[in-house]
């Protein structure tokens, strides 16, 4: 049967020259036919327990998200993402209200290099509809590869700038780092600078949710005002790279590509698969080389984490939605204690940030189980306190502040995570 015989190796065609701005993967495919074949697999959609590439509505699965994002585009439409080949189709499809700026185009098309060359930084403020007309190809080869040498390259300025601000030179990155950094061009938390709409990564204080929150607090940044609670809110978006920092895998030098672009055999040699999807769809390639346990075992470990994270995520959604309810009913009372209400809102903002960080991240906690569960715990405590503050604002009664833990032994800090040699 055809399934049993190894795929025939197609020799890379040496004659093909690739232009500096060549966005069409089919052209690259002439030179690298096997890689192009695996890239086309991105078109195959399928659902996994918590992820996958089936474009279902998150709002249907988790109705409380409508409450959480009330007043913001995500309360109307919020779908699961799918493969790279769909990036243009998907952004075209969504509600125009969500497409706030030209900046959106950055992570959606292989024509970016060309557009950036043409418009420079002024593309940020162009109408997105205009840029979408010029964008012909979804994410493709040129986004990660140099057309001449085929080496990995960073094409998105925001990543280079974020590194530069920390005094790091991204061109000095090792091969192993590059195998994650090409993904960090897009799979990261971002915001648009007020006014210029310039794409910026908020990492100046560090990669942890706490550090990013502090960055936004000092900046006074706000994504939208919550329609019911009137809280100035933050929206988290796909902090896949950030959450992964300091995880067991990351500390062992495992890169994004190791799990999402595993080597596959084509004939007698192997290549990096360019089908970037849920590893649950190819566990044996993605995990099996490093882990000799059974596929069942590996899947069960992924789910062991994901179930715990989803369980606490849903419970967190309940408490945060509860806080929103409490704040909005308190705020309707003329006799409300305004100072308490402000505190309640501040706590709501923080609680929802921690929750959303894990909700918006794409692995349901697998990229760093311990950090994910820590953040959900933060979220639930803060949301509970927000509810109390709202009830105090509403009732006039009040509870004493939480007792201090005493002469803390200085051991609680998660700041201390070091990076010792391995």
């Amino acid at each position, binding site marked *: 049967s055809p399934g049993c015989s190894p795929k025939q190796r197609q020799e*890379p065609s040496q004659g093909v020259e690739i232009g500096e701005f060549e966005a069409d993967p089919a052209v690259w495919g002439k030179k690298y036919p096997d890689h192009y074949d695996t890239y086309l697999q991105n078109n195959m959609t399928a659902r996994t327990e918590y992820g996958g590439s089936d474009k279902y509505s998150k709002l249907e699965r988790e109705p409380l998200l409508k409450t959480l994002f009330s007043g913001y585009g995500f309360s109307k439409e919020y779908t699961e993402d799918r493969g790279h080949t769909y990036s243009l189709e998907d952004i075209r499809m969504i509600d125009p209200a969500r497409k706030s700026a030209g900046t959106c185009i950055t992570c959606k098309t292989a024509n970016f290099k060309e557009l950036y060359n043409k418009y420079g930084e002024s593309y940020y403020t162009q109408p997105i509809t205009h840029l979408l007309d010029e964008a012909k190809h979804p994410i493709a080869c040129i986004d990660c590869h140099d057309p001449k040498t085929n080496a990995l390259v960073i094409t998105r300025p925001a990543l280079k700038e974020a590194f530069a601000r920390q005094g790091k030179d991204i061109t000095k990155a*090792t*091969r*192993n*780092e590059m195998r994650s950094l090409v993904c960090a061009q897009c799979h990261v938390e971002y915001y648009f600078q007020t006014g210029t709409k310039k794409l910026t990564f908020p990492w100046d204080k560090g990669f942890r949710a706490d550090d990013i929150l502090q960055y936004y607090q000092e900046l006074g940044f706000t994504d939208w005002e919550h329609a019911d609670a009137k809280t100035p809110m933050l929206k988290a978006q796909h902090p896949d790279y950030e959450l992964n920092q300091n995880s067991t895998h990351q500390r062992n*030098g495992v890169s994004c590509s*190791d799990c999402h672009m595993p*080597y596959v*055999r084509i004939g*007698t*040699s*192997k*290549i*990096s698969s360019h089908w970037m999807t849920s590893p649950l769809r190819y566990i044996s390639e993605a995990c099996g*080389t*490093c882990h*000799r346990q059974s596929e069942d075992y590996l899947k069960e470990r992924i789910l062991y984490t994901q179930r715990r994270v989803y369980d606490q995520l849903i419970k967190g959604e309940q408490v945060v939605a509860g806080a929103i309810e409490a704040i909005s009913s308190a705020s309707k009372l003329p006799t409300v204690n305004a100072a308490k209400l402000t505190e309640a809102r501040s706590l709501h903002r923080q609680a929802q940030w921690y929750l959303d960080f894990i909700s918006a991240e794409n692995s349901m906690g697998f990229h760093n189980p311990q950090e994910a569960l820590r953040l959900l715990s933060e979220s639930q405590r803060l949301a509970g306190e927000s509810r109390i503050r709202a009830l105090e604002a509403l009732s006039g009664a009040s509870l004493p502040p939480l007792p201090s833990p005493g002469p803390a032994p200085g051991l609680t800090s998660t700041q201390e995570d070091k990076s010792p040699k391995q």
Partner: protein
Amino acid sequence: MSGKRKWKWNWPWHWWQYGILSVIVLIGIGFTIGRQPLKGLAYALDKPELCILCHVMRPHYESWYHSAHRNMVCNECHTPHNFVGKYFTKARAGIVDTWVYFIGPMPAQFRAKPHTVEILQDNCIRCHTEVISRIGDTRHNGGTYCFSCHRDVPHGIQTGIGPDPRELRQ
């Protein structure tokens, strides 16, 4: 400072003084190793069975013996494949390991030393040129070693002195 003077070595020695010292040192080493002379000799040859003259190599031998690389002897991987490099490595390892074995200090766990790791990588590539022809040497420019992913080749993660939980299951 007179203290410094006191410890100053009185160079130069006569050649015969060196000669006597060397003989004493060699006899010393020979005496220690000579208690079981075959063990030192193991390094001159390539037979894996000789490695386990030192029972501390047993876990590595056993794991290798049950691996797909059973037909490749230890030195296919653990020594460079050029005459000088091979015998230099063997001599060096022979002296160090024998010293450690008889005199100590014996590390709690054995680990491939940094130079061994480079030799290993070169050997993976030597045999598997075809399969990696399109991805290249994964180590280049700060990449990873083959055995960072192929963690079980050929010893399994279990080369320490503990029992393998998988074997204890019943």
